[in-house]
């Protein structure tokens, strides 16, 4: 096979053609696999000299920063400030015994406020959703937990937004800062949640303030991205008009550029809030009380009914926060006719003030409108449990068989196969793929990322993660792709399916674990199913968007050439949509990586499990090395897909 490399018939070409090199590398990979039994051990698994003690170095660096640089005092100081704010919100929202000793605010007042905000932003339906969410929470007796969760978001989100805005503006002002920021953001956005938690535990400890701080850090990157994007998008004429109006730099920034970039910045705010929610739920792993902690406990105890209730609460909160911030982002200013009175101009404020006053007054008379005790709450856990039990018994033969089939015939053989591969063969294979897609540079990128994973010393664990991700993404492709094609068939259907995908994507990843644990219990099948569900959503979504995004003129041209529906789909729509669909594949891989790691606590043997161990032993070095290994997998796929998609786009004249 390697003969292809040397025996190139097109020797007159100055360089070997791309496919030839790729084929050669592929040949090497196959050869390495076939001859594994006689290979020297150093080619089968990373030899000892190749495994560097990155973890020790990182630990040394962190110790140096913490003890010698005195960074500990800085972080502790900041943490104390955050804690003070957390106490204030905790007092107001659920009556924790702290300054200002005013709370708790009656739940009816909070529900009414949420309703008015929803109404002002979009109208009745959002008002119902917002107020309804809080009514559900109180009726289900989850008020305190929910408010514990919300109080962290209320404190963390503004910090994230502020930091993101500041760093974004800095990056936009200076090319150098942007160049430094870009790779950091890339890595930060592909690091799994747990990787953020370990350093925070080291510097801050556990509990609500650590939860708040990890949430702040985790949700800053999208804000920076969107701020940069928004500021760059401001039309040069608007900036020039600002200059010609005699604006100073500061005036230009705060009254021209930032307000004009408003929509993108608010999309950033939306992402921050969604990230905050996702993180705050997961922060239960580092002792953050609230909905996440309850859900974690209940899931581990297999109390499905109660978990479902909490799941619904988290979903409602997610959808509400998402809809409200999105509505805020797309909201356009509208004028009032001349001579409109103050009351009409500020009608939402007036309505809010009146309703709040009414709610306060009623809460004084009817204690039920002030606070609802746990014993007074409704719980549907019993009926849900009954239904779930009945359902599980009903489909038990199916799930049993599926579990057996998947584990014995697919998962275990696949895992063994991945583990059988010599690491040198994997590197050669990745280099082949890289070369085929993007030439030498991409091949080197692939080798660099996976080479570092090999050097981390976690090769076997990493291969288990790769196996779960690749199987889940494959499954997601098999299901998501046809579903996307089906969804894109009609306009109305496309809108509906997209709405569902959108909503599913707002759910914190944790939620996906509830149904799979319910169906399969706690094992690999459950993990793979959760990852598959989570990964299928972006695939469906981008398939539809890609197919719908094909220019109308091309479809008309195909129709006039006498193409049937099927011919149009295969010859026109799909080729044109493929670059967009690949974006979906990329996201799908990213999502699965995150999910695999999160799912670790229901029992896997991959990087995620080790990360959990690192978290419980607060081993920063190990945690970050594992996190970076996951990030590198994601970044490699990201690089390959982007390379391929941009080349395809250019070839199609779309870019």
């Amino acid at each position, binding site marked *: 096979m390697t003969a292809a490399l040397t025996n190139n018939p097109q020797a007159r070409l100055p360089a070997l053609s791309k496919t030839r090199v790729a084929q050669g590398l592929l040949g090497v990979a196959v050869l390495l696999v076939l001859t594994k039994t006689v290979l020297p051990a150093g080619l089968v698994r990373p030899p000892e000299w190749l495994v560097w003690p990155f973890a020790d170095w990182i630990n040394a660096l962190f110790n140096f920063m913490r003890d010698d640089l005195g960074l500990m005092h800085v972080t502790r100081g900041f943490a104390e400030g955050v804690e003070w704010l957390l106490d204030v919100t905790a007092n107001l929202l659920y009556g924790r015994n702290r300054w200002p000793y005013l709370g708790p605010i009656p739940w009816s007042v909070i529900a009414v406020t949420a309703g008015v905000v929803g109404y002002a932003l979009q109208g009745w339906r959002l008002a119902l959703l917002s107020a309804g969410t809080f009514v559900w929470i109180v009726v289900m007796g989850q008020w305190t937990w929910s408010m514990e969760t919300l109080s962290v978001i209320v404190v963390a989100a503004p910090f994230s937004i502020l930091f993101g805005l500041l760093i974004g503006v800095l990056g936009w002002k200076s090319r150098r800062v942007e160049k430094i920021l870009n790779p950091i953001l890339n890595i930060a956005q592909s690091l799994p949640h747990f990787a953020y938690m370990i350093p925070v535990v080291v510097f801050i400890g556990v509990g609500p303030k650590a939860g708040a701080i990890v949430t702040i850090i985790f949700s800053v990157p999208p804000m920076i991205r969107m701020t940069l994007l928004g500021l760059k998008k401001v039309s040069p*004429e608007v900036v020039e008009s600002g200059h*010609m*109006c*005699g604006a100073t730099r500061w005036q230009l920034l705060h009254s021209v550029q930032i*307000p004009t970039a408003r929509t993108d910045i608010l999309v950033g705010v939306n992402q921050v809030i969604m990230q905050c929610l996702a993180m705050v739920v997961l922060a239960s792993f580092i002792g953050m009380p609230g909905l996440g902690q309850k859900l974690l406990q209940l899931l581990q105890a297999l109390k499905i009914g109660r978990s479902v209730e909490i799941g619904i609460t988290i979903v409602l909160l997610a959808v509400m926060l998402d809809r409200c911030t999105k509505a805020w982002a797309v909201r356009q200013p509208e004028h*009032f006719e*001349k001579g409109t009175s103050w009351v009409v101009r500020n009608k939402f404020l007036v309505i809010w003030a009146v309703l709040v006053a009414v709610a306060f007054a009623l809460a004084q008379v009817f204690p039920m409108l002030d606070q609802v005790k746990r014993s007074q709450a409704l719980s549907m856990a019993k009926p849900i449990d009954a239904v779930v039990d009945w359902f599980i018994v009903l489909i038990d033969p199916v799930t049993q068989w599926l579990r057996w089939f998947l584990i014995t015939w697919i998962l275990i053989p696949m895992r063994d196969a991945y583990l059988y591969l010599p690491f040198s063969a994997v590197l050669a294979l990745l280099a082949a793929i890289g070369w085929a897609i993007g030439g030498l540079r991409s091949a080197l990128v692939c080798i660099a990322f996976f080479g570092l994973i090999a050097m981390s010393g976690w090769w076997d664990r990493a291969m288990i993660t790769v196996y779960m991700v690749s199987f889940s993404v494959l499954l997601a492709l098999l299901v998501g792709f046809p579903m996307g094609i089906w969804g894109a068939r009609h306009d109305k259907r496309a809108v509906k399916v997209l709405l569902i995908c959108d909503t599913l994507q707002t759910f914190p990843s944790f939620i996906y674990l509830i149904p799979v644990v319910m169906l399969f219990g706690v094992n690999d099948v459950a993990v793979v199913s959760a990852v598959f569900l989570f990964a299928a959503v972006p695939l469906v979504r981008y398939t539809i968007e890609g197919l719908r995004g094909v220019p109308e003129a091309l479809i008309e041209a195909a129709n006039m050439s006498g193409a049937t529906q099927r011919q149009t789909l295969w010859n026109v729509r799909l080729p044109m949509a493929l670059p967009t669909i690949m974006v979906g594949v990329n996201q799908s891989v990213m999502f699965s990586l995150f999910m695999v790691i999160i799912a670790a606590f229901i029992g896997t043997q991959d990087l995620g499990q080790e990360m959990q161990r690192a978290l419980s032993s607060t081993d920063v070095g190990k945690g970050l090395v594992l996190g970076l290994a996951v990030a590198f997998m994601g970044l490699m796929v990201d690089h390959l897909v982007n390379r391929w998609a941009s080349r395809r786009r250019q070839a199609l004249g779309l870019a």
Partner: protein
Amino acid sequence: MTTPETVISCNNVWKLFGEKAENYLAGMTGNPTFDEIRQAGYIAAVRDVSVDINRGEMLVIMGLSGSGKSTFVRCLSRLLDITGGTVKVEGQDIGALDEKELIDLRRNKMGMVFQSFGLLPHRNVLDNVAFPLEMRGQDRHTRRARALEVIELVGLGGREEYFPRELSGGQQQRVGIARSLAIEPDIWFLDEPFSALDPLIRREMQDEFLRLQEMLGKTIVFITHDFDEALRLADRIAIMKDGAVEQCDTPDKIVLEPATEYVRKFTEEINKARVVHARGLARPINGIAPSGEPIAGHTTIQEMGRLLVNDTRDLMPVSDKNGKVIGAMARQEALDVLFGAPA
């Protein structure tokens, strides 16, 4: 005759885009063409332009896209720093101004209108128009009063509270015009202000613009790619190609005596009789006293077509706005413009 006062004076202005363009310009020998400069890795957006603009004059810069006209006007307002040469505004070299002085100059002397309006989407009409006043730090009340005044002037009275997206393109550009006039600038830059509008609205806006200019008498630099628009509005036209000015003259001269082949191509399809005025054909009298009723200098040849055919004089006197005879026009020459020169 008094010599007109120069407001903006450009001397050998160069604008090159590319790494270290100053060094390249300093080391440049001879007079390289646009393509030669491109081969060296630079884009020559403005090449060696020298133009003087007088007080109260409307200079129209005409060129196709990529000719450097928009870049040139940005050099005049120092939205772009020039690579070589000088731009003086009322005798002051604007390249030498520091940031604060430049801001002061823009706050007090200059106004600019943009092709795609450049309005601030989050501010209503009133606040958009008052924006330059706000930048100057004027108080709310004065700001509002002045903004309302200019809004009335551009015919948008009653729409102060509308937001840009609630207005049509023509109305948005009126806001842009009002904003640029709010500080009562002496110098008014207009960068293709009507190009984004549809033809009917464009014509209406041109009329409106002429009415405003009649009233305000600003010094104007007007950019357009539309030759008809240039002929219609200009006191003088500068035609640009590949960053250089091909010809800078009155519309009459451009049509009658195109300086280069490029300019001649533009004028080919133009009905010259509609462009050329009596004053454009008038020659100094030199002692001969042409007889009869003088023709007003601003009459176009087309407007006096019937008169030209019926009249029998060989030389017809031409008068200026005040009725004073400024020269004489040969009837035959005018007829040639009207019907085309005999083959």
